[in-house]
C-alpha cells in the first residue's frame, strides 16, 4: 500500500502531535506515524501519576493542542480526546525504518514494509530510543535498566538510581512513594549540584531525603555492578553496597545514525551534538524538518510550539516569528544597531566562543535566561568586591581588568569572544577586580546556574571555559610577568585530571617532573620517614606542586594525595623546562618557593629524628583534621581542649554579635588529641551551601568568608547541602533589654541566645518572623575579628587557615 500526503510527521510526542493537529486544522493532507499502539510513548512511559510541569513559565503556548501542568493520566486522556476531535490522521505501530527522497517526494519505509510518500517530512521522534548507557563493568547485567514504567511494581528492593536529572529524581520518588513497598532507594549523582533537574523536583528530592525516604550520594559514580552489589566511588572513597536493582537515567542522545541516513548533517562530531537546523527547523535536507527533543528541546511547551510553527513554515509563512520572539525582542531593544532577533542570536553565537557549540535553536532558549548589555568605553562593568557570580562573554569590543586595586591604570585586556567573571562560577567569591569597557562593547551576562547548565550540557562550552580558566590560573599562580604567549606551549600540554579523595597524584621515589596545579580541592604531602608516612604539608587549591623534581632533576621527594575530591591540572615537565629556560624571573620564583618548602620538610625530618613520638602525633592530628573536612576549609574554628573550660562564652558572644542567634555549637563535633573541631562553618573552598541557592544569596566575602545575604528566602537548601551541619534555620529573636538592665534589674534573658520560652513570650504578636538560614560569617567587618575567638577567656578558641595550621604550628603545639 502506498499513501501520499503533503506532510508526514514521524513521532507522536508533544511536537509531532502539535504539528499534526495544526496540519489537520489547516486542512492539509497529513499522516502522523507512531511506532507504539498509543500516542506520545515517552509520556506514556512516564511513571504512573507523574505530575508533568509546564515550563518555562514566561513562554506562551500557541499550539492547537491544549497543554497545562497536570498529571500524566489526565494529560494523556485530554490528548486522546483531542486527537479524535481534531480529526488527526494517526497510524499506530508504524515505525520508520528508512527515509529516502527529497523535497516534494520523500519515501518513508516502515518496518512493516509499507511505504509512505510525502512532500514534506517532520521528524519528531525524540531521543528516548537512544538512552545513554552505564559504562562501568557489570552494566550489562539483567538487573540494570534504563526505564521505569511502574514504580509500584517493585517491593522490598534496594534500588540505586543513577543520575539526578528529572527522570532519575522522579523515578526515585515514585519508588518510595508508597511506604508499604518498603524499597530502599539511593540516588547517585556525579556532581554536587543538580543543574539538569527542575527546581521543583530538586526540592521534592531534598524533602524526601530529609524525611529519610531516600538516600543521596553526590560527587559519586558507580564503578562496578555485581549481582546483589554495587560499588560506588564517592567523594570520600569507594563503597560496596547491597543492591537489587540499578535504574540508570543518564539522559539520551539523538538517534544519529537514523537521522544521518536520511542525509541530514549534525552540528559537530560530538556525541551530544544535535542536527544542523535552519531557524525554520529545516535540516540540511530541504523539506526535512526536525523538531522537539531531537532538535535539542527537552521541554513540552517548546516542542508543541515548534509543531505549530513548522507547519506554518511548510505552508510558506515567512512572517511567523517564534513564540519567544517578544521576550527576546525586549531583551535586545537596548543594544545599539538595529538588528533582528535572529541576527542578534547569530551575532552572539558566532562572536562568543563558549556559545559556538549551541545550535541556533538552543541559542534561542539559552538567551531567554541571559542578559545582554552595551557599555561605553571606560564604563565600569563591575567593581572589585561587588557581589556577583555571573559569567560575561564579550560579543563585541574589549574589556580591561584592573589587576592592581591601588593603581587603576594598570590593566590587562580581555579580547572579543573571550569570557570574564568566571571565578564567580567556581566558588561564588566576590569580584576580584574591577572590569571596565576598553572600547564600546556588547556583552552577554549568564547567571551562575545557567552557566553551570551550559557547561554540563555543551561539552564545547565546558572545554572552552576550562581552557580559559586554566590559562588564567597558570598566569596568576606563576606571575613573573608571564604573558599568554609565553605559556602557550605549556597550556597546550596541560591536562585536567579529576582525583578521588585519597588518590595519589605523585608517588615518592617515582621518576617524573611534571608540574601540577591544584585547581579545586586540596592535597596532602607525606614522606616516608623511618618506615612511617609522616605528614609534611597541605597544599590548598590555587597552588602548585612537583617543582622539586623538575628543578633538581631527581626523583619525587614526597607523596602527594588528594585530601578530598579534587581537580589538578598537569603541566608537561619538558614544556615547563623550556619555559623556565626562557624566563629567569619564573625560575627564581620557583627556586624560592622550593627553598622555603624544603626548609619546612627538613625541619620536620630533623624533628622526627629527635622527637619521633611528637612527629607521629603531629602526623596523626593532621590526618584527623583532614578527615574532619579541614581539607576543603579555608578558615576553621578549632578548640584547644587543653585550655577550654566549657564556659560557652564563644557561643554567647556569637549570638550577641549576630542578632541573638549563635552560629556555632562548641561542644558538638569530634575531638582528637584534645583538639576539637566544633560545629561551625569551615568556609569551604567550594561551598556546598552555594550549590542550589534559588535567590543566589550566598557569597564569598573579602576575607574569604562565605555569607548569606538578606535575599535568603528560607528554603533550607543550603542547610541540606552542608555536610558539616553548620547551617541552621531560625528566625531572628526579639530584641533583648540592654546588658546593664540585665545586670542591675535582671530584666531579659541575659547574654547569649535567648531561650525558647523567653522568645515565645516576647515575640511580635503580629506575623511570626520568617525563618532564614543562619551561618558563620567570620564576623566580617568587625575590627577586632571573630567574636568567638575574642570572647574566649583562656585562649582555647582559635581560627586557622589549614595551610598555615597544618604545618609547623601544629608540630609546635605538640611540643609545648
Amino acid at each position, binding site marked *: 500500500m502506498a499513501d501520499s500526503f503533503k506532510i508526514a510527521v514521524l513521532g507522536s510526542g508533544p511536537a509531532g502531535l502539535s504539528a499534526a493537529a495544526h496540519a489537520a486544522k489547516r486542512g492539509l493532507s497529513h499522516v502522523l506515524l507512531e511506532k507504539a499502539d498509543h500516542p506520545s510513548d515517552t509520556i506514556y512511559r512516564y511513571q504512573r501519576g507523574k505530575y508533568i510541569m509546564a515550563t518555562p513559565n514566561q513562554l506562551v503556548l500557541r499550539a492547537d493542542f491544549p497543554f497545562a501542568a497536570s498529571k500524566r493520566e489526565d494529560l494523556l486522556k485530554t490528548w486522546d480526546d483531542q486527537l479524535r476531535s481534531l480529526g488527526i490522521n494517526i497510524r499506530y505501530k508504524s515505525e520508520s525504518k528508512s527515509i529516502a527522497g527529497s523535497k516534494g517526494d520523500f519515501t518513508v519505509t516502515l518496518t512493516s514494509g509499507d511505504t509512505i510518500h510525502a512532500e514534506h517530512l517532520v521528524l519528531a521522534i525524540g531521543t528516548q530510543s537512544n538512552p545513554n548507557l552505564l559504562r562501568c563493568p557489570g552494566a550489562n547485567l539483567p538487573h540494570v535498566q534504563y526505564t521505569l514504567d511502574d514504580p509500584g511494581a517493585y517491593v522490598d528492593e534496594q534500588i540505586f538510581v543513577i543520575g539526578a536529572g528529572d527522570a532519575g529524581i522522579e523515578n526515585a520518588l515514585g519508588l518510595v512513594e508508597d511506604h508499604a513497598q518498603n524499597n530502599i532507594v539511593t540516588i547517585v549523582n556525579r556532581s554536587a549540584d543538580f543543574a539538569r533537574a527542575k527546581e521543583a523536583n530538586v526540592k521534592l528530592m531534598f524533602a524526601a531525603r530529609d524525611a529519610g525516604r531516600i538516600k543521596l550520594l553526590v560527587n559519586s559514580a558507580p564503578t562496578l555492578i555485581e549481582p546483589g552489589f554495587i560499588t560506588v566511588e564517592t567523594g570520600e572513597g569507594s563503597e560496596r553496597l547491597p543492591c537489587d536493582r540499578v535504574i540508570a537515567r543518564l539522559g539520551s542522545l539523538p538517534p544519529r545514525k537514523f537521522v544521518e541516513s536520511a542525509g541530514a548533517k549534525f552540528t559537530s562530531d560530538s556525541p551530544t551534538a544535535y542536527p544542523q537546523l535552519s531557524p525554520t527547523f529545516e535540516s540540511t535536507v530541504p523539506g526535512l524538518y526536525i523538531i522537539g527533543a531531537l532538535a535539542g528541546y527537552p521541554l513540552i511547551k517548546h516542542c508543541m510550539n515548534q509543531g505549530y510553527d513548522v507547519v506554518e513554515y511548510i505552508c510558506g509563512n515567512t512572517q511567523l516569528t517564534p513564540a519567544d520572539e517578544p521576550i527576546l525582542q525586549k531583551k535586545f531593544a537596548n543594544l545599539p544597531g538595529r538588528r533582528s532577533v535572529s541576527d542578534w542570536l547569530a551575532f552572539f553565537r558566532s562572536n562568543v566562543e563558549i556559545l559556538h557549540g549551541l545550535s541556533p535553536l538552543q541559542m534561542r532558549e539559552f538567551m531567554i535566561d541571559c542578559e545582554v548589555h552595551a557599555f561605553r568605553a571606560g564604563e565600569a562593568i563591575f567593581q572589585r568586591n561587588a557581589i556577583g557570580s555571573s559569567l560575561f562573554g564579550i560579543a563585541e569590543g574589549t574589556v580591561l581588568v584592573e589587576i592592581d586595586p591601588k593603581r587603576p591604570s594598570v590593566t590587562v585586556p580581555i579580547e572579543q569572544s573571550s569570557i570574564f567573571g568566571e571565578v564567580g562560577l567556581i566558588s561564588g567569591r566576590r569580584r576580584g577586580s574591577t572590569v571596565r569597557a576598553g572600547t564600546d562593547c556588547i556583552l552577554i551576562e549568564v547567571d551562575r546556574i545557567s552557566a553551570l547548565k551550559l557547561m554540563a550540557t555543551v561539552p564545547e562550552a565546558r572545554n572552552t571555559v576550562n581552557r580559559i580558566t586554566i590559562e588564567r590560573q597558570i598566569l596568576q599562580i606563576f606571575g613573573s610577568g608571564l604573558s599568554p604567549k609565553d605559556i602557550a606551549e605549556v597550556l597546550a600540554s596541560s591536562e585536567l585530571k579529576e582525583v578521588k579523595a585519597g588518590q595519589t597524584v605523585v608517588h615518592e621515589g617515582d621518576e617524573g617532573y611534571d608540574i601540577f596545579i591544584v585547581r579545586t580541592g586540596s592535597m596532602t604531602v607525606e614522606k616516608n620517614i623511618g618506615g612511617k608516612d609522616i605528614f609534611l604539608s597541605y597544599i590548598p587549591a590555587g597552588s602548585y*606542586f612537583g617543582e622539586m623534581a623538575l628543578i633538581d632533576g631527581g626523583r619525587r621527594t614526597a607523596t602527594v594525595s588528594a585530601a578530598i575530591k579534587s581537580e589538578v591540572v598537569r603541566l608537561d615537565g619538558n614544556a615547563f623546562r623550556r619555559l623556565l629556560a626562557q624566563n629567569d624571573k619564573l625560575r627564581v620564583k620557583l627556586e624560592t618557593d622550593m627553598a622555603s618548602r624544603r626548609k619546612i620538610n627538613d625541619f620536620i625530618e630533623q624533628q622526627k629524628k629527635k622527637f619521633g613520638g611528637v612527629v607521629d602525633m603531629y602526623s596523626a592530628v593532621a590526618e584527623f583534621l583532614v578527615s574532619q573536612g579541614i581539607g576543603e576549609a579555608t578558615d576553621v574554628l578549632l578548640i584547644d581542649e587543653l585550655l577550654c573550660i566549657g564556659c560557652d562564652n564563644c557561643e554567647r558572644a556569637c549570638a550577641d554579635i549576630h542578632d541573638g542567634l549563635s552560629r556555632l555549637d562548641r561542644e558538638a563535633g569530634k575531638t582528637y588529641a584534645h583538639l576539637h573541631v566544633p560545629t561551625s562553618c569551615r568556609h569551604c573552598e567550594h561551598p556546598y551551601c552555594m550549590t542550589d541557592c534559588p535567590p543566589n544569596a550566598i557569597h564569598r566575602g573579602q576575607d*574569604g568568608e562565605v555569607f548569606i545575604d538578606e535575599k535568603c528566602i528560607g528554603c533550607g537548601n543550603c542547610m541540606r547541602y552542608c555536610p558539616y551541619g553548620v547551617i541552621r534555620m531560625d528566625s531572628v529573636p526579639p530584641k533583648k533589654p540592654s*546588658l546593664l538592665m540585665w*545586670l542591675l534589674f535582671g530584666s531579659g534573658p541575659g547574654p547569649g541566645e535567648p531561650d525558647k520560652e523567653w522568645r515565645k513570650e516576647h515575640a511580635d504578636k503580629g506575623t511570626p518572623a520568617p525563618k532564614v538560614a543562619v551561618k558563620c560569617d567570620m564576623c566580617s567587618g568587625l575590627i*577586632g575579628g571573630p567574636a568567638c575567638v575574642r570572647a574566649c*577567656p583562656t585562649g582555647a578558641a*582559635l581560627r586557622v587557615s589549614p*595551610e*598555615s595550621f597544618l604545618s609547623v604550628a601544629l608540630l*609546635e603545639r605538640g611540643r609545648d
Partner: protein
Amino acid sequence: MAKEAIYGERADVTHHESFLRHARLRWLKIAAVLNVAAIAAFWWVFVYSGTRLEHAGGTWLGYTLGTVGALIMLWLTMIGIRKRAMTSGNWSLKAWVSAHVYLGLSLVIIVTLHTGFQFGINIHTLAYLLMLLVIGSGIMGVIAYMYLPVRLSDVRGDLTKKQMIETIHALDRLILQAAQSLDHTQARVVQLSLDKTIIVGSLWQRLTNFYPGCGNRSAVNRVKRLRRRASGGSAEALDKVSGLLDRKQEILGTARRYARVRAMLEAWLYIHIPMTFALLAALTAHIVSVFFFF
C-alpha cells in the same frame, strides 16, 4: 609552605598562647614592674628614710599605694562586664583575663605594703582579709583552669551534654517499654529508675559525685536480685531491663563525672564573686572612714 594564604590574612593564627602566657607574659612583666617599684618606694620611705610604720597609710606613699590598689580592684571587677558585653572593638577577653590574674596577684604586695603591717579588729583589716580571700579563690580558679580542661575533654570524649541527657531519656523510654512484660513487683523496682533518678544534683552533689539515693542504682541492684530468683520468660524480660539499666548507669556516670569537672571549674567563683562584693563594700567603708574620721 605551599603558597601564602589566598584567603583572609587574619586567619593565619600560626601560634596560640594560653591566657597565662598571653603576649609573652606581658601582664606578668607589668605586674612585676609595679611590685618592684612599690617595694623600692616602701624601702626608701620606711627603711632608708626611717618614717614610722604606724601611720604608713597616711603618708604620701600610703595614699599612693592605696589609690593604686583601689583603682586596680575597681578595674578588676570590670571583667564581669567585659566578658558579657560583646562589642566590636579590638579587644580580647584572654588579654583581660591575663591582666586580671597578674594585676590581681600584684595586689597582695601593693596592698600589704599599704597596710604598713598594721592590723587590728577593724573595718580596714576586714577589707584586707576579704581581699586576700578573693585573691585566694582566684588562685584556685587559675589552678582549675590550668589542670581541669583536659579532664573535661577526656570525660566527655565526643559526647555533648545535650547528647548525654537525650541518651538517658531515650533509655528511659526503652526501659519503660521493656518493663511492660514484667509483673507488678518487678515493675515497681524498675519504676525507681524512672522516678527517682536525678541526673545531676546540687552543687555539693556535683562536686562530690555522691548520689546515695540514686533510683537507677537501686533499680540496677534490685533487678539483679530479682533475676536470680526468676526463670523462663520473666528471666528473659529481666535480663533485657537489666541491660538497659546498666547502660543508663554507665551514661549517668559519664554525665555526673562531666558535671563534677564543670562544677569544679565553677566552684571557686562561689567564693570569688560574693567576696568581691563584700570587699567592695568594706573598701568603701574603709575609704569613707579614713577620710571622714582622721
